[in-house]
């Protein structure tokens, strides 16, 4: 490491240079005008035929606890500039987190050098012209404003009751994220988004090792989160999941809480690529070739869509190419309406590009989980799923396990805590075996991440293939 790599900034915007030298949320988050100014500054260094610049800044704080004890806690500020230079069909990306003129110029030049040397990309698309965006209001001062003392008090909403109970241990995590992202091109396009999120999850285990309960919540505005209620829910689940009994694996009627639905159904999005389908390697390939667009592939009560403006997600309203994202239906009334079309593939196929979605939403119904339980003579209630891994990409067949609260339902009531199961099933099969739908909820982070809103579901014939001794 050289001295010039560790000298900072004087030419950076004033907001990036805190008088005490420390970066906090105020410093890491550029306003739209400052972001535009920084992108313009970077563009001036460019000698390429075209250039695109993405900047990202964030300040995250967190507190973690486990075994009824504080674990780690921190505050992290970072910033990233990405420059992609184009010479005809050649292009390359370079990123840096240094903001001196010298470092930025070096990044631009390096991206130009790499681009010139790179082989042609025959699929390179010209940069988009300026676009119109409607801002998403996703930034709430309550998130960055939460102090370290207040974060420790959130941990106490789980730690205090578990310590005083004597037979419970709590492990949990609170993360407050504040970020902005901006994207600008030599064609004059400029896009900006900023946002916040507060995410709190807790796992409470019984000290006898037989019970475990999980609960979580996420919102863009920390004031909307009832941390103590989340902690209470995990405690309640842990207590009621104690001393599970084994029942035979097999096909069961299952009520999946929203977290479990999201873990599984979100996966559909990763396979919904038009190109892979046209190439014959996706679950949406029609027999003999072509896509299943226009075919009814799921229960008619299912809509799957993306919408960054939905107040439950408040996601970034543009994709990595700067394409504006609105509400987009992928499944409507169980019918496959479209797949993801990149700009290149859309052009090749003569259709409009869809943009890469930044949210995943699924329609629901009006039933509560209690309603579903009452309407179930025999079935299984699942809190969440774990370690989902692809088994067969041809059908989106996944395996994984239940976790942190699995219960037997008999004659409309929860009667027993059950040992966890491994399942082998596909969201495409499951969404054809639908009985009841709940109200969609924002999830506190699925295994794959992202802004996900889905309902609880009751489904038939869910395929549990073995038992697990894990609690």
């Amino acid at each position: 490491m050289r001295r010039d790599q560790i000298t900072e900034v004087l030419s950076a915007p004033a907001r990036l240079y805190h008088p005490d030298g420390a970066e906090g949320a105020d410093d890491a988050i550029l306003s739209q005008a400052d972001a535009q100014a920084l992108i313009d500054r970077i563009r001036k260094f460019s000698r390429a035929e075209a250039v695109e610049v993405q900047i990202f800044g964030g300040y995250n704080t967190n507190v973690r606890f486990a075994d009824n004890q504080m674990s780690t806690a921190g505050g992290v500020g970072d910033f990233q500039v990405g420059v992609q230079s184009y010479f005809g069909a050649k292009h390359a990306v370079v990123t840096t987190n240094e903001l001196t003129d010298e470092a930025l110029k070096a990044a631009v030049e390096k991206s130009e050098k790499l681009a010139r040397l790179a082989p042609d990309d025959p699929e390179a698309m010209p940069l988009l012209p300026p676009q119109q965006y409607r801002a998403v209001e996703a930034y709430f001062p309550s998130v960055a404003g939460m102090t370290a003392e207040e974060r420790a008090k959130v941990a106490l909403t789980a730690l205090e009751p578990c310590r005083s109970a004597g037979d419970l241990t709590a492990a949990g995590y609170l993360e407050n994220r504040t970020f902005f992202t901006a994207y600008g091109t030599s064609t004059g396009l400029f896009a900006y988004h900023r946002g916040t999120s507060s995410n709190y999850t807790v796992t409470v285990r019984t000290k006898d090792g037989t019970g475990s309960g999980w609960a979580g919540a996420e919102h863009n505005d920390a004031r909307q989160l009832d941390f103590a209620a989340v902690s209470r829910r995990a405690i309640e689940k842990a207590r009621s999941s104690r001393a599970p009994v084994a029942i035979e694996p097999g096909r069961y009627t299952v009520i999946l809480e929203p977290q479990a639905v999201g873990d599984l159904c979100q996966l559909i999005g990763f396979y919904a690529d038009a190109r892979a389908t046209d190439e014959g390697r996706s679950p949406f390939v029609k027999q003999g070739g072509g896509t299943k667009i226009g075919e009814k592939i799921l229960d008619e009560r299912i809509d799957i869509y993306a919408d960054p403006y939905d107040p439950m997600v408040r996601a970034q309203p543009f994709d990595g190419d700067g394409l504006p994202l609105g509400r987009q239906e992928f499944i409507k009334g169980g019918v496959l309406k479209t797949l993801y079309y990149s700009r290149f593939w859309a052009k090749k196929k003569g259709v409009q590009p869809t943009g890469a979605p930044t949210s995943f939403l699924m329609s629901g119904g009006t039933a509560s989980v209690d309603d579903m339980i009452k309407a179930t003579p025999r079935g299984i209630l699942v809190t969440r799923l774990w370690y989902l891994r692809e088994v067969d990409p041809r059908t989106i067949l996944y395996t994984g396990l239940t976790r942190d609260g699995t219960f037997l339902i008999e004659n409309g009531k929860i009667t027993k805590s059950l040992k966890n199961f491994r399942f082998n099933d596909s969201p495409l099969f499951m969404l054809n075996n639908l009985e009841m739908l709940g109200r969609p909820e924002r999830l506190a982070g699925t295994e794959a991440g992202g802004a996900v809103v889905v309902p609880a579901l009751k489904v038939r014939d869910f395929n549990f293939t073995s038992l697990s001794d894990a609690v």
Partner: protein
Amino acid sequence: MRSRRDFLKVGGAAAGTLALSGALRTAGASDAIPRVRHSATAPTMDASVKALLMEALNAAKMAGASYADARIGRYLQNFVVTREQQIINVVDTDSIGIGVRALVDGTWGFSASRVLTTAGVAAAAREAAAIAKANRVARDRLVTLAPAPAVPDATWKNAYDVDPWTIPVEEKADLLLKANAAGMKAANVKFVFSAFFFRKQERNYANTDGSVIAQTIVQSAVQQQFTAVSPDFSDFQNRTNATPPVGRGWEWVLQQDLVTNAARWGEEASQKLKAKPVEVGRYDLVLHPSHLWLTIHESIAHPTELDRAMGYEANYAGTSFVAPPADFLGKFKYGPEFLNIQGDRSQPGALATVGYDDEGVAPDEFLIIKDGRFNDYQTTREQANWLDWWYKSQGREVRSHGCSYADNWSSVQFQRMPNVSLLPGEKEQSYEDLIAATDRGIAIIGDGSFSIDQQRYNAQFGGQLFYEIRGGKITGMLKDVAYQIRTPEFWNSMDMIGGKRSYEVWGSFFDGKGQPGQVNAVSHGSVPARFRNVNVINTGRKA
């Protein structure tokens, strides 16, 4: 950050389906478990970097820290991504900053900043101490650290010869495109995705015990996916994970003979279209090191992380069936007497190999499983004290095994996996010898689908290539194979293992753990092994 990922466009949909868990063949890993500690051309720490580290430690102490450590790191990544006969993208990333960890009155605080000025690092240190103080209100027990000797002026580099950053991008792209072309010569192989992924980390470390350490680590991975599509669009099959990621440089890439081997991997994808669906039932499994490394990783390496056993990962990665420690250490029969599992960070070219961990500890080599019995956990300085009763009963020193790791300057260090390896058996026998000794079974090469519960009991593993064994011979290829296990029964069903010459080192470039999530790269050495009477399911089904 989805938006950042989109911007980088690293491989698009193809990269998404090529699960980011690399794996495969080490060139002639015949000398099992060699070890290194030092290398001639290690980096020296710049005086200005050292001054900033000292400034940060001083500020933490002034703010009340009884212990602090500071890491200034530069983290570089380079990707070259292709499909078929075209480039997808070239990406170079560079990130630099400081992370400071402070222990105040027995609670931790951490802060990280990209502002590398005297004022900037001091402010980060003060923030770390302030966060630690704020957490005292929720403190239960005090954190204490096992002693570690100060290392006042150490430097180290891992086993790379040729820095991948010195290789022109066109040379990297050319090699991938040639390999893609070779793979596509096979019948029905219509698509290839391939990428190089290189990491370089310049890590500078200091702590208030007096350690000052500079290290440079280079890691390299090749990812390739060959896809065969049946002419009537009724099936497609992938061959992937054919090369192991390593802690070496470009010289290793050249040794892989990617073009010649790609032709074979393409053929294998093609053959998978014609493979026979497996009949469900119980089989003897002969597992190649290219496959078994992942089973070791999931069912031995993860459950023997001490933080998991003590509940520190309960809210995310999970806990462990190997708990509480007092019920398992020295008592639990994990497998047969010839099952010996070593933890180390010393195998040259392995991904977790370092000179010093992120607490300034020189890692030791230790047996996690000794003669079939559970013997030790993976530890950091904070954790080693939790096992002092065990180490004292064994007449052993209470010390960290050097498993502290942070994946970036902006991440707090915690316990991560060292290289965890299945040691060779005494008898010199090969993968082929194990097949020849098997009457009715399935041989599996390469890692595929994998899933395991949060305590690491119940697991299901797929693979890349499955071969039917009848009467000691391979009689054909199978598909849609996965086996389900319960960890203790599985390892106790192992009845044959390979000898030294069959030892290979494989691993993962992307092992996740922690909140916020961090990625670790780790290797697993293994010999081939045979397991009796394992439950095999058929995973094929029509949409």
